[in-house]
């Protein structure tokens, strides 16, 4: 997709999200009239089908372009499955079918028993089974919502049977590629949430005074902010690097999967550090349900575990290195960008 077109679309998305009552939607778990109205506004603009081909009522953007959507929705901590629906509609389009006009959750093909994020917020779930891409309807009878989890994450009772669309998956869409792409979307979301955590923590420490001066004037606090900024910058760079690789090879070859593993590892590591520093700087205020910081950090902690934690992805990378005939990091580090 042309850069200019994508910019116009992302600006539109920013506007809609900025005007929406996101805190109230979050409190309602991403359910209810406000959430429905927000989704209707997004759907009216066609945003959920950003990455679907025009033939399937989409914008024809690449999945790599969808990463920007993921980052933006995360920057707003919007309690809705926009990133996942964009992802699902993009994959269904690649398989040759149109996604239903619904909120769509996605299931981890490498760990089918793991809870499905957004299940309770979504009308359908996309999963990959025996080389078939299946989109099935979700009703409350199909799942049990997981306590203490964000965004309607729920354990499915079994593979949903009310199939809306089913198609042979493209040959390149292996369970590893599916999970990898989903992990990259989560990495992009983490990078977005971190940007907001940084700006919130900056504002808070400049306004809050203790010992007669703003917290921001204390070196110990400045160092927390510096750590948040560095980790955020690294996360953005990691997602950009994997996004560039995906743009150059949209069918997710092994080189792309390596960059994705790097991005999910790096962002996952950063998420822990950023959340810890931000909460430390916010004191008890940040540990309340009411204060907005938690909307971001709770998701950071959840996203770092979804579709493979940083430790799993790092181990995958490491096994690749250590399994080489002549194990060496440098040839991998020095790959062209």
């Amino acid at each position, binding site marked *: 997709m042309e850069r200019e077109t994508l910019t116009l679309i992302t600006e539109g998305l920013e506007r809609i999200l900025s005007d929406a009552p996101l805190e109230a939607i979050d409190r309602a778990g991403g359910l209810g009239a406000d959430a429905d109205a927000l989704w209707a506004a997004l759907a009216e603009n066609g945003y959920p089908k950003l990455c679907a081909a025009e033939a399937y009522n989409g914008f024809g953007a690449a999945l790599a372009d969808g990463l920007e959507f993921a980052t933006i929705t995360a920057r707003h901590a919007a309690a809705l499955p926009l990133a996942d629906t964009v992802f699902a509609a993009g994959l269904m389009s690649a398989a040759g079918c149109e996604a239903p006009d619904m909120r769509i959750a996605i299931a981890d093909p490498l760990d089918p028993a793991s809870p499905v994020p957004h299940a309770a917020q979504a009308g359908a779930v996309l999963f990959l089974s025996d080389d078939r891409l299946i989109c099935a309807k979700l009703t409350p009878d199909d799942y049990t919502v997981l306590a203490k989890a964000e965004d309607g994450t729920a354990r499915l009772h079994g593979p949903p049977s009310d199939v809306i669309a089913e198609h042979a998956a493209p040959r390149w869409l292996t369970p590893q590629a599916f999970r990898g792409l989903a992990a990259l979307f989560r990495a992009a979301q983490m990078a977005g949430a971190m940007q907001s955590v940084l700006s919130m923590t900056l504002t808070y420490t400049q306004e809050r005074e203790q010992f007669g001066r703003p917290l*921001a004037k204390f070196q110990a606090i*400045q160092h927390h902010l510096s750590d948040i900024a560095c980790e955020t910058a690294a996360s953005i760079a990691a997602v*950009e690097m994997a996004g560039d690789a995906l743009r150059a090879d949209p069918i997710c070859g092994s080189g792309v999967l390596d960059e994705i593993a790097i991005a999910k*590892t*790096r962002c996952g*590591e950063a998420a822990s550090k950023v959340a810890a520093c931000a909460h430390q700087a916010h004191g008890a205020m940040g540990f309340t349900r009411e204060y907005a910081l938690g909307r971001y950090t709770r998701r950071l902690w959840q996203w770092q575990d979804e579709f493979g934690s940083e430790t799993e992805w*790092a181990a995958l990378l490491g*096994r690749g*290195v250590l399994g080489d005939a002549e194990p060496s990091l*440098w040839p991998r580090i020095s790959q062209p960008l």
Partner: protein
Amino acid sequence: MFHFPRLEFSEEAGALRKDVRAFLASERATGGFVPAADCWVSAADPEFSRKMGARGWLGMTWPKAYGGHNRPVADRFVVTEEMLAAGAPVAAHWIADRQTGNHILRYGTEEQRLSILPRIAAGECFTAIGMSEPQAGSDLAAIQTSATRTETGWTLSGRKIWSTGAHYSHYMIVLARTSPAEGRNRQVGLSQFLVDLSLPGIDISGIEDLGGTPHFNETLFENVALPPEALLGTQGNGWAQCMGELALERSGPERFLTSLIALEHALPLIARHADERRAAETGSILANLRVLRRMSLGVAQMLEQGESPATAAAVVKEMGNRLENDIVAKLRAMLAGIPKSEWPVGLESLLREAVLHLPSNTLRGGTTEILRGIIAREMGMR
């Protein structure tokens, strides 16, 4: 401070990388060098520097008129990162090629450029940094070295410390006070001088580092008579010039590739004892290094475009330094439980060397605390 532009390598850069690797393999095979950790600080070999100069791998980005090769910044990055990854003895020319030469190119007179840059590019002229003093470390503006005008030029008096390689260098860029501070503003009245270290009145004495290597020095300047053309750049502009120099100093691959050589040496052994824990540690190091390299390349790109990305450079150095120390810690953890009888020759000493350099990673070129302060200032906290 979050945008690190993408730097793409050309096909020529790919060919160059092959050449550099072939050169390094042949040097290693013929005993030209033994790989060392921290090679850009501790492993000086003027002969090796001359060989690099002869191949056109020094002063690569400078105009041909000054002995340079007019190549893109990505090409220089390829050469420097390959040298670091191989642990090659690049310390002699490192500072001249990385910062002094660029600094002279930017601020020097035509005469200074013509007389010094071709020699640096040939690997025959080495330089040292003259910023810190015994009483002025992180608080650089507190320096007391002074230069006063005379009828024939300047008289330089004072003491500089921690100057890596001063004992084999030909020049040092010295930051000196040329007029008093204005009240609390001590950043005014500072100037930089390009000092020929063979002049009378200069006494250089080596200081052994923690591991016993005498790589850095204290330099005493006793009423050293400098010619008028020793002034580098503009009188009174020394502070700003210094900060520009630090952007060159802080963002390169030496800020995160210094300990890698020890890890690489151990990797075949670790592979024979591969398990989930060791795989995860290895993967984490790979992820961190690859991302930081992209950011470092981004800063190189900004420098090429004429920007002075001081904060972005601080971000790279701050994370790189912590990563260096993290790599050593992870390496020790991965080696734990593997009998010493299986360790390859040289690993023990590479590891010791890396361990003994741990404190310097987060000190030299600006401490972690100073760098975090720079980043915080950029965000408006100070």
